[in-house]
Structure formats: C-alpha cells, structure tokens
C-alpha cells in the first residue's frame, strides 16, 4: 500500500535536512509502528505523508497504491484515503465541529465521485461514532477542538478517522497526553478500524500504546533513516534496553 523509497526531505524555510534516505514499505492490513529517539524525524515523516508544504522532498519517492503522491496537496491525499491523526490537533475558533465534519466528509465523497450525505444520515453516523468513543455530544457543539482537553482532542481525531474511513492511517503520538482509560478507548477505536485492506502507521515513543495496538512490524527511525526493522518483540527490546545498542550496531 505504501512504499517510501530513498526519501530525502528538508525544511523548506532553512534547508535543514531531516529525512535522509528513508525506506519503508507498509502492506495492506499491516500495522506498522515507528519508534525512535527525539529528533529522529518521526513527526516530520507524518507531515510529509500528509503533504505539509513546510517540507520539501529533494530525492526519492512516496508511492501510495503504486502511484506517487508527491505532487498532491493535503486535501487530495486525504481524499485518496490518507489520514493523519495529529499529535497536537489544532484549535479553530468560529468553525463548528459538526460543520467541519460535514464539509470534510462531503468534500471527500465529492472528490471520489460519490453522492453527498443527507443531513439526517450524517447526524446518525456522527452520533454512532461518537458514542463508540465515549464522546459527549455537547463536545461536538463547540468550535473545532476549542476548549477540548488533551484526551478529548485525541478522541476527536479518532472520531474523524472513523467517519472518514481512510485506507492509510498515520497516528502521530496519539498516546501522548492520554490517561490509561482514554488510551484504552482510543486504542479500541483504532483496533476496530483494523482490516485487511487498511494499513496503520503508529508513531510512538512508548511500548505502552503497542500493548493495546499490537503492531505487525516495528521500525526504528534514527537521523531520518530506518535503521532497524523487526516484529513486536523489537518494541519490547527497545523498552528494556533503549536505543543505544541499535544505533551503535547500525553505525
């Protein structure tokens, strides 16, 4: 589903290279965890996948279902089924959460040549999805993410993911700022979306999230490259021994 080949990317503004020859393949149905020390380029990778224009790809390619997505803007990538759950969801005053959800769902449908949702149908879908994530309906009456607690913001991200039904989900440190109960709710939400035709990339610092969302593969990112790939035991090994050994072995 996703094939990243020898990717090099830098910050557009100052030219700092962050991703330095990254290779990664994620198959349909796979849950891939990306771990790595601070500053290794994990969040940057998630932004580049989503198409943020603060980063420039200088070499290599990203193939999604066999096609390069480098020329697509974020909304076109989203319409093709790529979803980024933000580490820090943005608060947007004045934009009502329900209105935002409706516009997003309908624009994606339109881009795929599907019919727009009728309002009652839309409301029903949102209510069901919100209930499954234990989201208080009052929260949806507020402006987008405004006044949401950290946990509420992360749940709102998963709600959006559920409603938009993407093919490739990228979760950027979705566990940060979550208490144990919220972590469980969010993980259950993600697990419910696991399917043979959907892939999930979980970016995290900690093994804890991976106890709930059990990965098929684990990749260690360091200085903008994947330096080691393994199965879920690799995450346990990292938890016990840290990154130093792996970094040394790769050097």
């Amino acid at each position: 589903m996703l094939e990243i080949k020898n990717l090099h990317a830098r910050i557009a503004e100052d030219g700092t290279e962050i991703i330095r020859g990254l290779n990664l393949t994620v198959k349909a149905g796979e849950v891939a965890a990306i771990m790595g020390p601070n500053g290794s380029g994990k969040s940057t990778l998630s932004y580049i996948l989503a198409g943020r224009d603060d980063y420039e790809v200088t070499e290599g390619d990203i193939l999604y279902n066999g096609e390069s997505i480098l020329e697509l803007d974020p909304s076109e990538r989203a319409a093709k089924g790529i979803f980024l759950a933000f580490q820090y969801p943005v608060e947007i005053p004045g934009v009502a959460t329900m209105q935002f959800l409706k516009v997003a769902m309908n624009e994606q449908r339109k881009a795929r040549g599907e019919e727009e949702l009728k309002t009652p149908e839309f409301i029903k879908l949102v209510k069901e999805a919100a209930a499954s994530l234990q989201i208080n309906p009052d929260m949806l009456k507020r402006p987008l993410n405004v006044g949401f607690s950290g946990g509420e913001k992360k749940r709102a991200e998963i709600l959006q993911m559920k409603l938009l039904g993407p093919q490739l989900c990228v979760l950027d440190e979705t566990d940060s700022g979550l208490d144990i109960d919220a972590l469980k709710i969010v993980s259950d939400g993600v697990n419910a979306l696991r399917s043979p035709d959907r892939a999930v990339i979980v970016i995290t610092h900690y093994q804890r999230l991976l106890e709930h969302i059990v990965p098929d593969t684990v990749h260690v990112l360091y200085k903008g490259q994947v330096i080691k790939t393994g199965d879920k035991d690799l995450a346990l090994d990292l938890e016990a021994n840290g990154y130093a050994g792996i970094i040394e072995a790769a050097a």
Partner: protein
Amino acid sequence: MNMQTKPPHTAAEKAILDSFAEIMGQLPGDAPVTAARDKLVSAISSDGLPTRRVESWHYTDLRNLLRDVPGQASGAAQQVDPLVRGSLVLPVVQGQSAEIRAPEGVALSSYMELLASGEAVKTLVPRGSDDLIGRLNGAFVMDGYSFSVAADQAIEEIIEIQSTQSGGQVHNRFAASFGAKATATIVDRHLGDKGQTGLSSAVTTLDLADGADVTWIILQGCGEDDQRLAQLNARLGADARLKLYVINAGGKLVRQELHVEAAGEGSHLDLRCVNLLAGDSHTDVTLTLGHNVPNTTSSEIVRNVVLNRARGVFQGQIRVAQVAQKTDAQMACNTLLLSDDGEFSAKPELEIFADDVICAHGATVIDIDHNHLFYLMARGISEKSARGLLVNGFVDELIDELENEDLVEALETLIEQWLADHG
C-alpha cells in the same frame, strides 16, 4: 493676517443644496421644524462637507469621497422576507413607512407624524459642528418610525425595521425607547439595489430605561454603488444591557456612527461589529462611548475581512468620566487582510479621567493561519473551501454569541453567501 477663504462648493455639495431647494416644500413639519431644517442646511452650505482636517472625519474625507448625489427616491423598491421568519416587519420602502399594527406592549407611530406635528423638533439638533450626518438627516428627514416598549414587556418576536432602497435619496429617522426591564431584539436592516446609485442617511435614537435588555442588530446590505451615512445614539439607564451588532456587507461609501452613553450604574454595552469589505469601497465605523457614572462595563470587538481594494476604518473613542470609577472597557479590532491592495485603519482613543478603571484596547492584522489551513486540508477539504471556512469562522465567532439560534443561523448564512460571492 491671512483671511481663510472658503473653497467653492463641490458638485456634491451643490447637489445637496439644490435637492433641498427642490424638496423643501414637500418635507413634513410645522414652522419650528421648517426653521430647524433651514438652519441645518445653511450650516451645510457654510461649512461644506467635512474633510480630513475635521478630526472625526480624518479617515473619511467626505468632501472628497461623496461624489454622486442622486435626485429624490421615487418608484418602488423590492421588499424581501424578514431575516428571521415570523419577525414583525416595519417596512420603509424608498424612505416611506407603512401603517403597521403594533404588537401588545408596543406603541408605534410614523416619524412623519412626529415631524408634521412638530413633536420631533427637539430631535433635529446635531451633536456638534462636525455632525454632518445629523445636519444632513435633520434637514432632509421625511419619515421613519418611532416606537416604545412598555416597562416589563418581553417582546418575543423579532422586530425588523426593513428599509429597502432602489437608488435616489432617502433620509429616515428612528426612535426606540424601552421601558424599565423591557426586553426586545431588533434587526435594523437597510438594503440597496444593485446597479442603482443611492444616497441614504439614518439617525436612530435608542433609550434604554433601567434594567432594559436589548439586542439591536444593524445590518447594512447596500448596493455596490450606494452611499450610506448612518448614526445611532444610545443611552443606557442603570443596569441596562445593550447588545449592539453592526454588520456591514455592502455599499460604496459607508459611515456608521455609534454614540453610546452609559448613563446609569451597572449598565453594560457589548458591541460586535463585522465589516465585510470588497471592491473599491470605503467603510467607516466610528464609535464614541461615554462611561459617565461608576460601575459600568463595555466590550467592543470589531472583525474585518478586507478583499480587493477595499478600505476600512474603525475609530473607537472611550471616555471615562472622573466619577466613573470601576469602569471596565475592553476594545479589540482584528483585521483579516486578504488582499495586498486593501487597507484598514484602526484608531483607538481613550480619555480616562478616573483612576480606578480597566481600559484595554488592541488591534491586529492577520492572514489565514497556516496551521489551521493545513489541518482542514488534511481532512480532505480543498484549499478554497478551507479558506472559506476559516474566514467564516473568523467572523462567525462574534455571531455565535447571540442567543437566538434562528438569528445566528440567518446571519451566518448571510455572511457565508457574501463571502462566496466575493471570495
């Protein structure tokens, strides 16, 4: 010593004086009203239209900007559905009021009657020598409405003053008084016609008795060639609350003055102003607010969206009298400048004579937030729609504060439509 020579009248000044000569015989009023009108016209003749040298008109040089003074309005103008279904509509068509049955607890009369009987003569006094709107409107005023809401009355239905104009000149006056603890919501709407050149003036006076709670929404939807000069004067009694909204969404040349006196202790003013500016237009909102007694509060937020070559002005003057301790006044003016050729001038002015007060003011000019745009686009919303949502959100934040959901929806739809038409 040099003699100040008066510049010759401009074409617009001449046209104003000619119009008066032409129409004076038809204007309603007894002898004192007629004398008051004559006095106002001769003041216009001798002082001319204000220029940038008159401080209160510094950013709106009317002498230079007012170009097209059309003849008197004639014919008909298309009335429209009220903003909120079920509102009581007080129509003003091409400047003329209609006979409307007032709801219970409201006494209503046409302004023409008040002028004809001479009762309105005391209102034909301008605020000062720089009050061109007061002068012009006082000289030419033909009609309008006056109504009063009895004490303790809660008027459930929205009252919509719907003034529709299709070119020509119209000059109206409105007076509304609200008895003690009365509550009401009024939509004060002026609509123009596309493709017609109009000149309109309006002077509105609000009097809120103790404990009255009023929402007054000025909705300006002039045509793109219209010139609009409007003034609102409000007095707040003790514990009275005025929620004043101004939404400017049209016109070529617009000046909306707001003069509010917090005259009773515990009174509160909320001013929320949305200026949607496009084309080659010039829009000026000028506020003077007097905190005249102790323990009064106010909050003023102005949000501007500037497109094309539009120019906007906000002058916000807050005066705090020496006795007005514990005044709390917060003023903000935020501009979303979406064009390199547009401009917005904000001039806050605080005159504080009391020593135990909080007065804050701030002005910002911003562009669309990059992080917001990326977030929305990452959810599949196209750049154009995402920008639209964000611009809408910037002004809808103020509209959301209204309690009446029908009103919120109607105003947000109107704003959305404007942005879709001009964005």
